[in-house]
C-alpha cells in the first residue's frame, strides 16, 4: 500500500465513522451505545449472618429474574447486569455495602436488604445518591417516617400483615390472647399492631411477653400464660421460634397458636411435626404450591428452581423462603415495567421513573406471581393479598386467601409532596 492509497482509506473510514456518529445524534432510534449499555441492578442481601437463609433465596431469585429478562430482550432493549453484596446481616456492613454498590459498581437500582435495620440505615443514602431503593425489610416505618421519595416497597409490612390477618384471628380463632414476641423492633411492632387491631376487633390481650433474641429456655416465661388464655400470637424466628414452640407445646399443647410466616421461613417442619401441628401462619405466598397453584406461580418456581414443596430442585435439604423471595422477583420486574413505560435512560430520568411507579398497578402475571397489587402513591407501599396456612399432619395447608382490601390502612406520609 502506498502513501496515497493509505490516506484515501483513512479519510474514507473517518467519514464513515463521522456519518455513523451523526445518525446516532439525530436520535432516530436509541443509540447503539445506549442499547449496549447495561442497566445495573444491585442487591444488598444477607449471604452470611443470622438471615443467611433469606440471602440464599433472594440471590437465587434475582439471578433467575435477570436471566429471564436478558433471554427475552432485556429492559427497553438493554441488557441487565446483576451485582450482589453481602451485608453479613449487620447494619454497619450493610450501609457500607450500599455505598459500594452505588459508588464502585455504579448500579442504577438497589433491591434489599431483608433486614429492616439495614434498610432504614440505607434509605437516606438512596436519596443522597438519587438511586431508587427497593428494601425488603418489613418494619412499618421503612415506608413511613424512615422512607423518602426514592424508596419503594413491593412487599408488605408488619402493620399490613397484622391488619390483613386480624379478622380471621379474632373471628375464627380466639378472643383471649397472649402475645410472645422477640424483644427488638420487629417483635415490638408485631406486639403493638396486634394489640391495637385485636382490641378494635373486640378481642383482649391478657399478657404480652417479650423475650431476648437467642432465648434457649422459654419455660420460665411461658409458664406465666394465664389459664384462661385461648390463643398465643407469636413473632419470633429461626431457633427462637423452634425453642418457643417446643416449650409452648410442652406446657400448653391445647392452646391455639398463630403468627407470621417469618417464624418458619426456611425451616424444615418435619422434625417439629408434633409441636407445630394445628398451628396457624399468616403467609404472603404459600410454601407449598398447592396452596396457590396458579400458572404464574408454577412458572416462577420453575424459573428460580423451587419445587412444589418449597425446596431447591436438586437439593431438597435447602428450603426456600418462598413467602419472601417473590418480592425480589417482582421488584426487578416492576423496575422493567416502569422503565419501559416512561422511557428512562439513566439516573437523570429518575424523577420520571418515580412518578411512573407512584400509584402503579401490577396485574398477576409471570412478572407478578404473588398476585395483583398496587404501589400506593403517597407512601410507596405495596398492598397485596395474604394467605392463611394451617399445619395438618406436619404439612402447611392453605385454608384462606385474604383480599387486598383487608390489608389497606390509611397512609401516614405523602412522599409525592417531597422534591427529587
Amino acid at each position: 500500500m502506498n502513501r496515497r492509497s493509505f490516506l484515501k482509506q483513512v479519510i474514507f473510514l473517518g467519514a464513515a465513522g463521522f456519518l455513523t456518529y451523526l445518525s446516532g445524534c439525530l436520535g432516530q432510534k436509541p443509540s447503539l451505545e445506549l442499547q449496549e449499555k447495561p442497566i445495573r441492578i444491585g442487591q444488598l442481601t444477607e449471604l452470611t449472618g443470622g438471615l443467611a437463609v433469606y440471602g440464599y433465596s433472594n440471590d437465587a431469585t434475582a439471578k433467575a429474574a435477570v436471566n429471564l429478562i436478558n433471554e427475552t430482550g432485556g429492559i427497553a432493549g438493554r441488557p441487565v447486569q446483576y451485582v450482589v453484596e453481602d451485608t453479613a446481616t449487620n447494619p454497619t456492613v450493610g450501609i457500607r455495602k450500599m455505598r459500594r454498590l452505588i459508588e464502585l459498581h455504579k448500579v442504577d437500582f438497589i433491591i434489599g436488604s431483608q433486614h429492616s435495620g439495614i434498610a432504614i440505615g440505607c434509605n437516606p443514602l438512596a436519596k443522597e445518591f438519587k438511586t431508587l431503593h427497593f428494601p425488603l425489610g418489613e418494619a412499618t416505618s421503612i415506608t413511613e417516617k424512615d422512607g423518602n421519595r426514592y424508596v419503594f416497597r413491593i412487599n408488605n409490612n408488619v402493620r399490613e400483615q397484622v391488619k390483613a390477618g386480624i379478622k380471621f384471628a379474632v373471628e375464627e380463632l380466639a378472643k383471649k390472647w397472649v402475645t410472645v414476641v422477640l424483644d427488638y423492633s420487629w417483635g415490638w411492632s408485631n406486639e403493638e399492631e396486634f394489640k391495637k387491631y385485636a382490641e378494635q376487633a373486640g378481642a383482649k390481650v391478657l399478657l404480652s411477653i417479650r423475650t431476648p433474641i437467642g432465648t434457649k429456655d422459654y419455660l420460665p416465661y411461658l409458664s406465666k400464660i394465664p389459664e384462661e388464655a385461648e390463643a398465643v400470637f407469636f413473632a419470633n424466628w429461626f431457633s427462637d421460634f423452634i425453642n418457643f414452640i417446643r416449650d409452648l407445646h410442652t406446657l400448653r399443647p391445647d392452646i391455639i397458636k398463630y403468627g407470621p410466616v417469618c417464624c418458619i421461613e426456611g425451616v424444615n417442619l418435619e422434625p417439629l411435626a408434633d409441636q407445630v401441628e394445628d398451628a396457624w401462619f399468616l403467609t404472603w405466598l404459600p410454601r407449598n404450591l398447592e396452596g396457590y397453584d396458579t400458572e404464574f406461580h408454577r412458572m416462577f418456581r420453575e424459573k428460580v428452581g423451587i419445587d412444589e414443596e418449597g425446596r431447591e430442585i436438586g437439593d431438597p435439604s435447602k428450603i426456600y423462603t418462598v413467602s419472601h423471595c417473590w418480592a425480589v422477583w417482582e421488584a426487578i420486574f416492576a423496575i422493567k415495567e416502569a422503565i419501559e413505560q416512561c422511557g428512562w435512560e439513566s439516573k437523570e430520568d429518575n424523577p420520571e421513573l418515580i412518578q411512573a411507579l407512584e400509584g402503579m398497578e401490577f396485574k398477576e402475571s409471570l412478572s407478578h406471581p404473588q398476585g395483583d397489587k398496587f404501589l400506593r402513591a403517597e407512601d410507596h407501599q405495596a398492598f397485596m393479598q395474604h394467605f392463611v396456612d394451617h399445619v395438618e399432619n406436619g404439612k402447611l395447608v392453605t385454608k384462606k386467601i385474604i383480599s387486598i382490601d383487608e390489608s389497606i390502612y390509611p397512609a401516614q406520609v405523602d412522599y409525592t409532596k417531597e422534591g427529587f
Partner: protein
Amino acid sequence: MVEMFLSKLAFSLLNGAVWGLIVSLIALGLTLIFGLMGIINIAHGDLYMFGAFLSWYIINYTGNYWLSYLVPPLLIGLLGLFLEKEVLRPFEDRPEYTVIATIAIGYILQHIALAIFGGSTQVVRNPVPASLHLFGIEYPVYRLFAASASLLLLTVLWLILYRTTFGLWIRATMQDKEIAETSGIPVNRVCMVTFALGCFLSALGGSLAAPIVQISYLMGFDVLVLAFIVVVVGGLGSLKGALVTSLLISILENVLSIYLTPLESRLFSLALMVAILVKKPTGIFGRQTE
C-alpha cells in the same frame, strides 16, 4: 397463693439446675483449655456448633441417637489434636496470637457449616418426646436426661482429674509447666490431649443440646458468651467455679423470671456477675496470681 408461689419457685429451681448442668458441661472444656494452656479459645462455641451439626447429620442419615452422641465428640476431639499440634503450639506462651488463631478457626468452621448445611435452622427431633408433671407444670423428660448425662460426665471428668495419673499430670502442668516438664511429665502430650478433651466436651455439649436448642451455623456465639461469663466469674481454670457459676446464673435467672420480665431478669443476673468480679476480680474460685 403461697402454694402457687412455692410451686413456681420449685419449678424455677429445678429448671435452673437442669440448664446450669448443661451449660457447665459446655463451659468446662473452655476452662480446662485456659487453665492448662492459657489459650482463650474463641473457637469453642464453633466446635460446639460443629458437634451439633454432625449430630443432626448422623441422626438424619442413620436415625441412631447413641451414634450421634459418640461420633461427633470423637471427630471434634481428633480435630482438637490436630489444631493444638499444628496451629496453636507454634504460638505457645503468646496468648494474644492464640486469640487471633482461634478466631480464624472459628470463622473457618462457621463458613464450612454454612457451605455444607446452609443458612437455615436445622431441627433435631426430640428422642424422648415425653413430659413429666412436676410442680404443676409439664416438664420435658429430655432435659432431665441431658442434665443427668452432664452430671455423669462431670463426675467422670472429676475422677479423671483427681483419681488418675493423667489427671495428676494435667493438674501439675496447670500449676507450673516448667517444673512439670523437669519432673518427667510429657507436657506437650498433656497439652495436646487436654486441648482435644476440651474440644470433645464442647462437641458433646453440642450433641446433647441439639434436640433442645436449634442448630444454625451461628449458634456457637450465644454459647461462647455464656461460657466465658461462667468461666471468668467462676475463676479461670477452675472446674468447681464453672459448675457453681453456671448453676448460680441459671437458677437466678429462672427464679427472677417469676416476677420480672425476661430482659430484667437477665440484666439483674448479669449485674450480679459484674458485682462478683468487682469484689473478687479472680472469680469465685480463681487463684490469686503474682
